[in-house]
């Protein structure tokens, strides 16, 4: 017996096929979640125009408002992509110490050690085992890694909470971004090029020219020490974080000589006694280094926040003596003057660069004019005239693009009185009807546009 489908014998389906596999699927898989219509209602725009706009007639403000309007209406459309690994997020938004899991460390290849013949036996207790038959490598225990990483994070948090200066060092290729970001979060210093031997032991010679500043407990700069600061010793870090200790033995040795604690990533071939707080992990994988450095940076950020919160309440930790005397009379004013002069000099330099850029643009226009003399000389002359009158380069270029539009698209100058937000927004139903009415009057063919309600029954329409 042949069973025929009763819905339709031939032709197209009566109803459009739903995009989800089956209507009941939604109920079963998305347990507790609303249907698609409800979701749309929830995400419908409530108040798109930000309340911060002061001048509604400003062109930029209107573009901004239009952008947010579009975003609110279209952001929820389309597929939702599941969260997955995005390399830049490890630097832009690093994981916090609370977010470190064994799965994350494994996905970041932090467990991969070196060949067994290259190991340092002092690392034996960090190693989980040996993997491979022909070229065996050591596998680092990830629970050990996580434990040591959390310990190091506690140290950094403690140091930064008491106003300590942390130096992040990562001299291998590709570690610069992570190191800079971690230093930025912890309020410390970074180094991604070669460590100059003697920067700590011979600091007055090597780092003597580096600028210093004096800040109070709320990190506000205090003027008045401009005469004393060049004579003081170069700052030494209170904690050093080294992402590749194998290449920075000199740095770690100097830290040992000056009693500075060190934190670092220890691979299976690194000597762990070089560091105060080793973190056994893979130092060859950029992803694992970024995860670890990111967590340490986040710990430093937490410490900074704690310190500033306490300082606002008046709780301040005493720092070791800095060897500075109270500022002499008039020194503060002199320092401020020097600062102001430096700022003005920088502004002047920027302006000079702008003028040079404008002159180069004028030169470029002149050359183009010389080349394209046959084509529309009047437009270029007018443009040059506008420039020479003192208009800006941007205004001249904008006018030029406008005029080009005029020639090409039969652009109506009167239309341009509308602002961009008004011009580009979708038409409402009344405006659409108006536009159609206008078209009707201008002899638009009625038959070409028929509203769906008035359409006659046609056999080939769905």
């Amino acid at each position, binding site marked *: 017996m042949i069973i025929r489908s009763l819905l339709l014998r031939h032709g197209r389906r009566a109803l459009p096929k739903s995009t989800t596999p089956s209507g009941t699927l939604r109920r079963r898989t998305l347990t507790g979640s609303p249907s698609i219509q409800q979701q749309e209602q929830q995400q419908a725009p409530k108040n798109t125009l930000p309340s911060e706009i002061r001048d509604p007639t400003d062109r930029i403000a209107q573009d901004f408002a239009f952008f947010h309007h579009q975003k609110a209406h279209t952001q929820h459309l389309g597929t939702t992509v599941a969260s997955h690994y995005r390399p830049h997020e490890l630097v832009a938004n690093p994981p916090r110490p609370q977010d470190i*899991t064994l799965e994350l460390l494994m*996905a970041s290849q932090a467990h991969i050690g070196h060949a067994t013949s290259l190991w340092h036996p002092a690392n034996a207790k960090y190693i989980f085992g*040996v993997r491979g038959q022909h070229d065996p490598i050591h596998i680092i225990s990830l629970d050990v890694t996580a434990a040591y990483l959390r310990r190091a994070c506690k140290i950094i948090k403690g140091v930064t909470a008491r106003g300590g200066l942390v130096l992040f060092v990562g001299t291998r290729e590709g570690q610069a971004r992570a190191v800079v970001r971690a230093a930025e979060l912890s309020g410390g210093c970074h180094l991604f090029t070669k460590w100059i031997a003697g920067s700590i032991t011979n600091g007055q010679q090597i780092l003597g020219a580096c600028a210093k500043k004096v800040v109070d407990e709320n990190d506000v700069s205090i003027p008045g020490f401009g005469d004393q600061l060049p004579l003081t010793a170069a700052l030494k870090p209170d904690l050093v974080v080294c992402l590749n200790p194998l290449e920075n033995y000199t740095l*770690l040795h100097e830290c040992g000589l000056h009693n500075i604690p060190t934190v670092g990533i220890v691979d299976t071939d690194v000597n762990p006694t070089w560091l105060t707080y*080793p973190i056994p992990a893979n130092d060859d994988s950029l992803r694992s280094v970024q995860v670890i450095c990111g967590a340490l940076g986040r710990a430093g950020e937490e410490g900074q926040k704690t310190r500033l919160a306490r300082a606002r309440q008046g709780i301040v930790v*005493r720092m070791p*003596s800095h060897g500075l005397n109270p500022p002499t009379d008039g020194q503060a004013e002199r320092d401020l003057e020097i600062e102001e002069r430096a700022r003005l000099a920088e502004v002047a330099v920027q302006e000079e660069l702008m003028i040079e850029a404008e002159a180069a643009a004028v030169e470029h226009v002149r050359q183009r004019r010389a080349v394209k003399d046959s084509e529309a000389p009047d437009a270029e002359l007018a443009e040059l005239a506008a420039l020479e009158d003192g208009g800006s380069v941007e205004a001249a270029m904008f006018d030029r693009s406008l005029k080009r539009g005029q020639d090409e698209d039969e652009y109506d100058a009167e239309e341009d009185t509308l602002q961009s937000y008004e011009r580009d927004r979708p038409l409402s139903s009344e405006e659409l009807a108006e536009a159609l009415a206008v078209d009707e009057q201008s002899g638009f063919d009625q038959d070409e546009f028929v509203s769906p309600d008035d359409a006659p029954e046609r056999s080939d329409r769905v």
Partner: protein
Amino acid sequence: MGRLNHAASRVHTHATQILQNTRHTYPPPWLAAIQTTPPSEKLVRPVLKRTQKPGKRSSRIFQPVNITYEEDKLRWEYFNDHPWELARPRVVLESDGRDREKWDWSVELDVALNRPRMRSKDPFGRTGLAWEMVMEKQAARPLNGEAVIQRQHHLLTHTSLTPAAAYDKARKELYRIRHFRETERRVAREEAQAVGAFFGPGPLEIGMKLEDKAYENWKEWAIKETAALKQIQGSAYTGVGTEEAEEEMTPDFVEESPEELELVKESLPGSRKGQEARGGAAIHP
């Protein structure tokens, strides 16, 4: 660098001593933090292996152990039988390291081909809806040798199949889906070409072109080497030759003016007459 330097581990002790001996100094910011969280013990080697014989000591008890899994034997067997599977590129990048929570190896590898017909169930008892629910997650599984091994391991642990039967079942599922996908690609390529698409050279064509280029380079090198070799041989030749041989012996690539050639044409080093003396004892006895 044989001796060990323990300065890094003794920072706290050192700092405390300095503080005790100097007056009017506040401790550095890190001292309290290190006091709360002291550094770990270093240079400790835990016992990792057991000695083979109870009474005897072994020097290897401190070395890390080998990590082995049951799948290793399965991998050995599979990749020995399918060596070219090792040549297939494999993505080792992981997103969050929790792939084992996503992939369900009780689902067959060729599930994509087993969609049940309308209002009927497939051999595994799934309706169309159930198949769709399974496919939502399992369609993203990578289908390679590793998938065969995981499937085989699942069959061995959760079913009563013999090892040979489990291996056959798993690999045949892969064969089926691979065959389908390769045919699909070939047909898609033909369909595209029928409506005007064109493709660039495939890996075999590119390989041929590279080989041709290498051959041409070699040929140029060989010509130069041969000419150089002939020149060396020609200059080293001290044998007796006939008039015809003398004419043949003149090298082709010598670029001298005809007048110069005329001067020395009669005198050749290896000829019967010998080279004409233009100086020395013959001229100035």
